[in-house]
């Protein structure tokens, strides 16, 4: 950047002198959060354009063909927290086809699995009655506590020093729901809030399969092991999600995950949003504290009173903004956001649908988890602390082609597996690490689904480093920043930009890097758009 750069000098002249097209809002990034924000803004009469760098929208849900005839539906392979208001806004249910709630199979090496049904194990097959009772007690406790936290997830985080009436009513509501349950519940909530998931699981459960599963779910996508302090927050987060009105439930939409991204795009288009794909934003135009437009790689400039960045906060501020327009302290804290992914995703092209020993054919449509015990998850995490991948990884598996046969040629099948832990900064680099890790994952799968490896036609392993390049995700972190206590609520992504507005007036954040965080929920986009609408009459 030199002082003659158009990004800076242009704004010092009067904005009126521009012939540039003007919008009320420019949304950077056509992921589900960007599209959600754009849809809400457009439905409220704003003139909105979405700019997507890739050839199609969908963000992390953007699918791709990884072998002739075989497609992956993208990074997300199951829905477990799509917000009902977002679904309503986008009219995702309008076809009246309700997707069935899918089971979770906690795989056991001996073929005797535990199968959780309903919303996160309302009933469980394959466990003792006593264990069912214990799990139900834990589930009830955690769902109740997650419900208290949930009050804070569907609203803008309170601003310290500027707590308003509605913030107070949320606090009061949270307090009231605790009080009405008695003093014991209040104490227990404060006792457990920052605990580790392993201790909580040990407190209630004795079945290693169930313990392994909750340990896995609490730490999926987070740089924590089950014994790390605060790891229970990840499970709370999971349990704040609901699907079809059922807490903790999960499904794959009718027709598969690949139908979701187009549904978001269609909703935006129906609301009147202009969508441009294959265009890179190279600069957010700002001068003396105010953002007024964007510059595209074509050299074109677009202006708007609101620039909504639905991409990673670090990409927003460190790549698109001139840091001169931001404070040193702000740049420092944005640079320090912890955002290094830990999960690899394996897509397999198979000759025929695989059979996991001991799993009923219907349950193959669900979520299969390989996490034998708490110790297994903890042991899988340990090497990640030192920049190594796990030699005995924990896995979450789905078979996408069962819901969407179009993903594979007739008779064939696809398998999608999330494998932990696979640190972004692998010691020795992923180039040599990748084949080794892939072999380990395949070996693991083979143990539970004998014969699977012989039917592999092709495979595609995406490490966090690959996700970074392929999905423009700094650090390859699908939550756009660690979901840990210090990066939540009023500190997500950093305190000075926690309420969707940023130090640059006119620039707003709307990605998973903002409150309430990642997963296919649409909430960051929804809340950001609501905030923008509340600001300007």
């Amino acid at each position, binding site marked *: *950047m*030199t*002082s003659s750069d158009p990004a*800076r000098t242009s704004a010092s002249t009067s904005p009126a002198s521009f012939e540039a097209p003007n919008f009320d809002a420019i949304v950077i990034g056509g992921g589900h959060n960007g599209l959600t924000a754009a849809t809400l803004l457009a439905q409220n009469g704003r003139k909105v354009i979405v700019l997507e760098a890739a050839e199609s929208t969908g963000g992390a849900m953007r699918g791709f063909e990884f072998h002739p005839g075989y497609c992956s539906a993208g990074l997300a392979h199951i829905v477990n927290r799509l917000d009902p208001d977002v679904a309503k806004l986008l009219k995702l249910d309008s076809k009246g086809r309700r997707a069935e709630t899918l089971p979770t199979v906690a795989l056991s090496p001996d073929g005797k699995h535990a199968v959780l049904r309903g919303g996160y194990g309302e009933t469980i097959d394959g466990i003792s009655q006593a264990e069912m009772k214990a799990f139900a007690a834990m589930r009830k406790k955690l769902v109740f506590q997650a419900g208290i936290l949930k009050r804070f997830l569907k609203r803008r985080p309170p601003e310290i020093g500027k707590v308003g009436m509605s913030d107070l009513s949320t606090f009061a509501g949270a307090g009231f729901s605790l009080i009405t349950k008695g003093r014991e519940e209040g104490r227990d909530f404060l006792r457990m809030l920052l605990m580790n998931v392993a201790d909580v699981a040990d407190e209630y459960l004795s079945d290693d399969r169930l313990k392994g599963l909750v340990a896995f779910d609490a730490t999926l996508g987070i740089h924590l092991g089950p014994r790390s302090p605060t790891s229970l927050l990840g499970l709370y987060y999971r349990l704040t999600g609901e699907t079809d009105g059922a807490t903790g439930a999960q499904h794959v939409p009718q027709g598969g995950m690949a139908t979701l991204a187009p549904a978001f795009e269609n909703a935006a288009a129906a609301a009147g949003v202009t969508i441009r794909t294959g265009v890179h934003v190279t600069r957010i135009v*700002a*001068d*003396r*504290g105010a953002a007024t437009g964007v510059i595209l790689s074509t050299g074109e400039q677009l202006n708007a009173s609101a620039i909504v960045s639905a991409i990673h906060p670090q990409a927003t501020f*460190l790549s698109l903004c*001139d*840091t*001169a*327009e*931001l*404070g*040193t*302290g*702000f*740049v*420092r804290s944005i*640079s320090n956001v912890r955002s290094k992914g830990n999960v690899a995703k394996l897509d397999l092209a198979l000759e025929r649908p695989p059979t996991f020993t001991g799993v009923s054919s219907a349950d193959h449509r669900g979520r299969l988890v390989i996490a034998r015990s708490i110790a297994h998850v903890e042991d899988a995490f340990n090497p990640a602390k030192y920049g190594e991948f796990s030699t005995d990884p924990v896995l979450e598996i789905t078979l996408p082609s069962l819901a969407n046969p179009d993903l594979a040629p007739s008779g064939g099948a696809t398998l999608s597996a999330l494998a932990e832990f696979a640190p972004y900064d692998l010691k020795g680099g992923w180039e040599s690490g990748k084949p080794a890790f892939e072999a380990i994952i395949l070996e693991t799968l083979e143990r539970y689904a004998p014969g699977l490896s012989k039917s592999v036609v092709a495979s595609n392993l995406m490490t966090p480093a690959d996700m970074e390049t392929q999905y423009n995700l700094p650090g390859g972190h699908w939550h756009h920043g660690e979901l840990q206590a210090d990066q939540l609520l009023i500190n997500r992504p950093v305190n*000075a930009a926690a309420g969707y507005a940023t*130090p640059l007036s006119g620039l707003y954040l709307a990605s998973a890097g903002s409150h309430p965080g990642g997963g296919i929920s649409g909430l960051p986009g929804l809340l950001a758009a609501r905030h923008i609408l509340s600001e300007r009459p």
Partner: protein
Amino acid sequence: MMLEMNTRRALQGHIATPRFETPFHPRIAAISETSDWYTWAGYKAPHSVFDEELEYFAIRSTAALFDISPMVKYRIAGPDAERYLNRLTVRNVAKLSTGRVHYTAWCDDHGHVLDDGTLFRLSADTFRLCCQERHLPWLLDSAIGFDVGIEEETMQIAGLALQGPTSFAVLSNAGFDCIERLKPFQLADFPHEDGSVTISRTGFTGDLGYELFVPAEAALSLWDRLWTAGQLHGIRAIGYAALNRARIEAGFIVANADFMTAETALRADRARMPDEIGLEWLVDTEKPNFNGRKAILEARRNQTLKHVLVGLEIEGNIPADGAIIYHRKKHEAGLVSAAIWSPLAKRNIAIASLTRPYGTRLTEDLWVEIYALRELQYQKMMKRARIVPRPFIKLDRRAAAPPGLF
């Protein structure tokens, strides 16, 4: 065993010299009569050399040599240096031409002053920033997104302030040709030995004076050159006590003496915005964005500025250092951070911080409570204080061009 002991001793040398010595230390130590040292940014520096009183009069009557090597110095260079400094500091660096120096300040994101200092523009894209506190982490983090290099050169560069009416005569006599062309806040390089010395017409005394910067290796030869040339012009080495008197007369503030810097303040309410320490005139709100801009403008707009720094003239002749200021002898209004009886102004002067509206809306009926310790008994006095403009003294010779030969 004995050997082991000796090896250990050899490694413990730093214990014997817990403070760094400046490159000029051998000369100052040799002439020091008072052996009165204090610590300045980790360096052993003279508080006085032979007599505080006489050293002050060397500044005002002849020429005083003061070692400023401990002053923290950063070299900031690169294609983006101007743009970088414009974002870092509150003043407009685009208006600082090559070969000029300006006084400036820099703030954190909340508009709280991190430090004040002088910025030297050595070339189009090379600067030297001089200040009281160390800021390397802040300066490096500020460089994210800029093509600029930042190096601390406090140790490598030795500095001397030569201040007083005969300072020009001393330099002239020392053979610095064309030194008369230097106008206030101008700098130039002059040959010295095999290399050069950077001389600027700047200082901290409000008097005619210069500051000289050389590589540490050339320090002693520069000292000797000035010392020899200054013999007939009354050159004296001085310590901080004398300089402090002169700077109070000149109305200059000192970081962490007259205001707390944002990074050293432990209490949240001690940090100060430029407008709260008399530096509002530095802030250029028209230039491109800079650290603290938004917060400063907001504080101005919302009138949330809490303090104001003023000059006071106090009746009597007892310095009111550290005294509490009252409004109508009753309501606490502020604190005196520096005070002396000014021999030049023949007035009892002080620099003080007042809590607004004292000092802004309420400027009359201010009183200073002075406790004078007289032979183990305090005598408490309420003295009337009047807000007066700074500087307390104005010397024509400071800015005269060409400077006078005294």
